[in-house]
């Protein structure tokens, strides 16, 4: 026995008000999904933060582990000129020479990245105005053999008392790798002394430490 078409009553009556309510509900769900998605996205770290270096900090005189080498800041000096390439190089700021001790941990390695960072997050690369081996990966460190030397930087005068030295192995890519950090011991009384230092500084060549 079959019913005649159109004689079976619908289970739900579709009315204009019902259609409107369904549309409003759908729009509300889409909006809610967008809001929730946006809230989640805003809490997820961006690529730069997600892949940033692992900063390992230490004070002057303390070895800091950079995964492939240990770095120790031994001291710092500064002046208005530096020798290199047979001439003295002046600067609009000040020359800062950080003395460091490096020891490769397990295999031969290099320090390819050396920067100073100030309290405004400005980053100053080791200078290229003179030849320096320690900062540009030119000196290979053999495991267990400590090397002591200096790295030269050129920084503006307003940054000199709030500098941190950062070192890492790779010259080009420091993402998700260890990086050492050590504040440089420069106070406001040091800067006038350095500004009065007009005799050109000479960068200490890397040498095997006892």
């Amino acid at each position, binding site marked *: 026995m079959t019913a005649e078409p159109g004689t079976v009553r619908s289970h739900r009556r579709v009315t204009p008000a019902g259609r409107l309510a369904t549309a409003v509900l759908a729009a509300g769900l889409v909006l809610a999904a967008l809001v929730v998605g946006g809230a989640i996205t805003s809490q997820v770290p*961006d*690529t*730069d933060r997600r*892949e940033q270096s692992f900063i390992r900090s230490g004070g002057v005189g303390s070895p800091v582990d950079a995964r492939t080498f240990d770095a120790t800041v031994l001291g710092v000096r500064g002046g208005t000129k530096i020798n290199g*390439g047979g*001439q003295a*190089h*002046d*600067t*609009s*700021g000040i020359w800062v020479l950080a003395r460091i001790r490096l020891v490769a941990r397990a295999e031969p390695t290099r320090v390819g990245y050396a*920067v100073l960072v100030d309290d*405004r*997050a*400005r*980053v*100053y*690369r080791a*200078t*290229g*105005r003179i030849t320096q081996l320690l900062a540009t990966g030119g000196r290979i460190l053999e495991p267990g053999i400590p090397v002591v030397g200096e790295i030269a930087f*050129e*920084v*503006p005068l*307003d*940054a000199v008392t709030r500098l941190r030295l950062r070192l890492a192995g790779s010259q080009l890519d420091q993402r998700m790798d260890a990086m050492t950090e050590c504040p440089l011991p420069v106070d406001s009384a040091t800067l006038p002394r350095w500004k009065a230092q007009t005799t050109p500084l000479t960068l200490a060549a890397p040498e095997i430490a006892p």
Partner: protein
Amino acid sequence: MAAGWIVNAARKVPVHQVGLGVGALALAVSGLFGGLTTVRDQVPTVTASAATDGGPWRVTVIRARLFNDLPPLSLQKAGDRWLVVVATVEVTAAESRGDMTDILRVPAVPGLLTKEPSYVVLARDSTNVEYLNPGMPEKIGFFWEQAAGSPAPTEVDVRVYGKTQRLDALTGHLNWLDLAVRGQVHLTVDDQRNK
């Protein structure tokens, strides 16, 4: 009634003819609003000694000069000459930058061996600029080698380029990208070859 006639007529017209018709209509409307006007190179003109914001750097073009051989810089071909543009550059980005060869171009000068400068040299001590540090403006010389057979320029339009900081679509990192002209400086070239 009219709507029905339009629908019936549209069903009889081949699709490609509809496409052509729509395209022609769009072109006509675009033409009415200037879409067919020849695009001119609109580079803002900057006066010499005025600073141009290039994104990661601020540039003030100062002067242009012509030189013969200038040791220790080496010409690729003996007899060529140097076109030198001197500018003050300050890195306004947060990190030392090593892309100084991107900053200036002199596209209208004939006979240059390269579009980018062959040397970028610090006026302070004539060392090559590897990195320029933030907050430390420096006077820099940009050197282009010009072939001996090309006419020596008496005037030059120097274009200052800039970059925009945005997320790199490939890596997702925030980076300075999209090298583009930010200004043009017209200079008289000071010929120093016989001085």
